[in-house]
């Protein structure tokens, strides 16, 4: 198995969709995306609707043609057959032909991926068991629930033991138990050396399993890093003031617009969460608290949740 340093390298990638009879209407789906996905990691791709996440994945797989820029997958130009041979893909809202059963679907997609029928038959039982479809392999796909179809889709993406697995909303429609199962499968795949590129709306999902994350908005990458890096305390993080005061006094000390939350922690102690990005704002609050004889027990900036970090980044973008 050839392991590249980066499984995905994208440089200034642009995609313009054209439509209309004269193809004059244009939509800029990707506007200079640059990205580097290291191998052996679970890499998450986040972004609001219409950010260009699916387009980026489709460009990587050659399903959509790039307008300009460079995109390489496993060292090959994006879309090359050699690259696709080493990639497993689970598209969003995929549709597996309804006349197939679980096992014939794996046989079909396995052969499409270059495996022999014998090889597929050898691998299929274990794989179906791994994704939780054991005992349903001879049922028609038309009788599968959404979650079962997702599991089967995941199985076909893993079948040929690819170096890179690209998953677009893999847990869509899957129940919480199933999600946990899928997370475990992905983690074990990563442990086995596979790289996983994951696109999901479920921030919690990303937060739980991704080693690194890229946030895409309006067709360009806004931020990349580990989850920890993205959620680490920054100036924009809320300040948490632990004070001994009643709620009325406390509220009179802060500008109401800056307070995001007031928590009563007991014994007349309150935690006031306030957005104070500038140091002079923090200083003036301290002055106000002192002037009103409010005891300041502690003061610190809190880490963001991934959701907060994501929203903040997107909000910055909108602003």
């Amino acid at each position: 198995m050839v392991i590249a340093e980066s499984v995905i390298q994208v440089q200034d990638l642009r995609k313009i969709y054209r439509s209309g009879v004269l193809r004059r209407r244009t939509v800029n789906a990707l506007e200079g995306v640059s990205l580097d996905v290291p191998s052996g990691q679970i890499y998450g791709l986040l972004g609001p609707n219409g950010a260009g996440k699916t387009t980026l994945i489709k460009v990587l797989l050659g399903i959509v043609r790039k307008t300009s820029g460079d995109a390489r997958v496993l060292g090959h130009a994006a879309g090359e057959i050699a690259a696709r041979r080493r990639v497993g893909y689970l598209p969003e809202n995929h549709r597996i032909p309804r006349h197939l059963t679980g096992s014939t679907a794996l046989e079909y997609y396995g052969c499409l991926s270059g495996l022999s029928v014998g090889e597929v038959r050898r691998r299929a039982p274990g794989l179906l068991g791994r994704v939780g479809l054991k005992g349903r392999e001879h049922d028609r796909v038309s009788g599968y629930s959404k979650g079962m179809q997702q599991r089967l889709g995941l199985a076909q993406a893993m079948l040929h033991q690819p170096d890179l697995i690209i998953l677009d909303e893999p847990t869509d429609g899957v129940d919480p138990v199933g999600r946990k199962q899928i997370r475990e499968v992905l983690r074990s795949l990563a442990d086995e050396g596979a790289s996983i590129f994951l696109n999901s709306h479920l921030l919690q999902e990303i937060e739980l399993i991704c080693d690194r994350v890229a946030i895409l908005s309006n067709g360009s990458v806004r931020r990349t890093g580990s989850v920890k890096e993205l959620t680490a305390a920054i100036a924009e993080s809320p300040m948490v003031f632990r004070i001994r005061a009643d709620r009325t006094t406390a509220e009179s000390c802060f500008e109401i617009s800056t307070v995001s939350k007031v928590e009563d922690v007991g014994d007349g102690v309150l935690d006031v969460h306030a957005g104070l990005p500038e140091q002079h704002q923090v200083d003036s609050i301290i002055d106000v608290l002192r002037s009103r004889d409010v005891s300041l027990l502690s003061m610190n900036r809190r880490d963001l949740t991934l959701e907060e970090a994501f929203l903040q980044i997107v909000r910055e973008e909108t602003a």
Partner: protein
Amino acid sequence: MNAYLAILKDSFREAVASRVLLIALAGIVSILLLLAPFGLSTDKATELRRSEVRQPERLLTRLVNGAEEQNTPAAHLWSLLNDAQQKRARDLLNPESENRPRRRGGPGANPLKRQIVDQLNELLKADHFYDVDSWKDVRLPDEASNLLQQPGLSDSSLQRRNLLLLAAAFRREIDIADSNAISLGYANATVIGPIPLTPSQFEPIFDQIVVRVVGVFLGFLGVFGSLLVTAGLIPRTFEPGEIALLLSKPVHRSWLFVTKFLGGCIFTLLYASVLVTGIWLLLGIRMGSWQHQLLWCIPVYVFLFMVYYSVSAVAGAIWRNSIVALVLVVLFWTGLQVVGVTETALQDRLVNDRGIKEIAIVDTGILAVDGEQNTYIWNAESSHWQQTFEEPPDSMSGFARRFLATGVRFAPVYDSHSDRIYALQLAESRFGGFGPPQLVTGYAEDGWERVSLGRVPEVVTTVLIGKDGRVLLPSSQRIYQYVGQTEQQQRRADFLDNITGGILSGAGKAFKQVQPKDMPDLGENFAAAINPDDNQLLLFGNGHLHQLKALDDGSYSLIQSRDFDTDESAVMNVAGMHAVLALASGKIQVLNARSLETVHEQQLADGVVPRLCTAAPDGSSLAILTHAEDVFLFDGSTGRPITWHPPENGACSAVAYSPDGQLLVSNGRLAVRKYDVSTGQRSDEWSEQTTWVYDLYDYVIQPLWTVLPKPSQLDEFVTYIMSGKQSVLATGTPPWMANGDNLQQQRDTFEPVPVIRDNVIFLIAMLCVGCLYVARRDY
């Protein structure tokens, strides 16, 4: 490769999973099971068939004359008829009787024959059909003799015996072509039997029925049923959820499209294989007719489906909607039908009906005959063809003439000695059907008014004019010379001709027999030519070429014969030192006109059938016109082929020579052009201005027809496969008039290569469009 096989396999799975396929297959199997009890059985013929009565009028006359005879088969059979039957028989011969049969079933039908055959078949059931004294002078076949010695014959054996006795007694009038008769049965019951056709007559009809059955089930129901089922296959594949998954696999987009397309064809392949193999097995097992060529229907109809499905596949890939794909296929089919029907109708009207088919040069100008056998003379002042030499107003329609009169070539022949033209005109018998033709003439000084010279005593097909102006009419066993008759003889002839309905030609005295005593039998389809230098006759028939020399008294003597070891018919002509003989198979032999030795041989392309031969009066060259409308020229002095061809080749519908040896050809329309064969230069032209309908045909319909595929012609391809014949009689020729060996009859030449080529080009073009679209599209 593994990936694409997987796609094909998946298509097969999808087809099997489809309920429609199962229902269709169940339907086919049910139909085959229903058809399975049908079977053909062959027994000894026990009934007289209409086609076996060669001369019904003569047969009836002999029977009626039996009333006056004693101890003859005719007398005995006459005595077996009751009074009513005898009266009826007499009525049949009496043209004034109200009981005389009226013609039904269009020109050519012969109700007299039907009635005679019905009455005789009733007689065959009689126990006392045979009378020793009556048959004592009749030579009986062995089978009849054996049956006569057997006591207590069954009904069928009795009928068989009587049939043989009848045929032996009336050898000239009845020809039992085949001793077997076919019956159609269902399980153990006889449904139709015996069929009133000989096995050899029944075989092509049976093949046609099989082709039609396969055509209906596969060509229409099969193909459109398959289109209905497979219309959704490609749109489903290109739905966003499925195509993204497929394109992420290491497969080429174009091959994915092509493989999915081929996968769709599996459905039709299954359907066609089951149906055709089932019919093939049924025919083989139940009817003993193992028609292996029938199996070719499977790839042919799958190919037909592929042509239509290519439209559906491309539409499905573009719009991803099965309804749109289906509607476009129906529109495509309708468009092809409209263009095809328009093309056929216009070609029929402009080329087959109105196009010039014969040319004759006369002293005062040029004559032309169109497809409906109307004669025209060129009017130089108004530059158009003006009708002349017209038929009487009560004669048959041009349409009927085109289809029915094709056995007799209506080609005016100019006699410069008397400045008049001769031609043979098909003449209907009073009782229906067609008798021998009439010789008609027209003088230049009378404005080419058509005058009948009387009915020729026998069937003749050619008028030959000798260098001294003699008019010769060879038949299969005789040679007649038209010698004319007095006005009184003419009136008597007309009367006799009228009352016998043409059975006995009253014009007998006008036609003098000049054949040699040892005149060979030329058979039904023969060719004849006269050498304008010395009046020598060449006759070709039954595979032999006979050379006849003109004697001083006007009769002919046989000089020599040459056996060509063939049973083919031919066309022939002679001029100067050489004769050219073109066989139906397209083998051309240029012969020394004196020694009959071959000086040059040439084989025309496969399926090209010669239509006529003509020769320059000065013997400088000879020309062969084929049914493919090509002209082949030969040098009259060396016998070698001339490399130059007229530019009209491929659309040349008539060819003739001017007195000075220049070649006249028609362009298939309203133009005749004159060429100097030695230089290839055009020296004259007679061309009428065509109307806008011709422009519509030339610049719109025909280019469209050329460019568009012709899937409907694959039906003809199947007929071609089944019959193995490229050149067949024109569509619509009534079976009773069809004579496959008559080279002068209008023919449809089927060209398999262009049909396959055009459809393959279209199929490839559509698949390329589909591949290009799929390869460039973002999904």
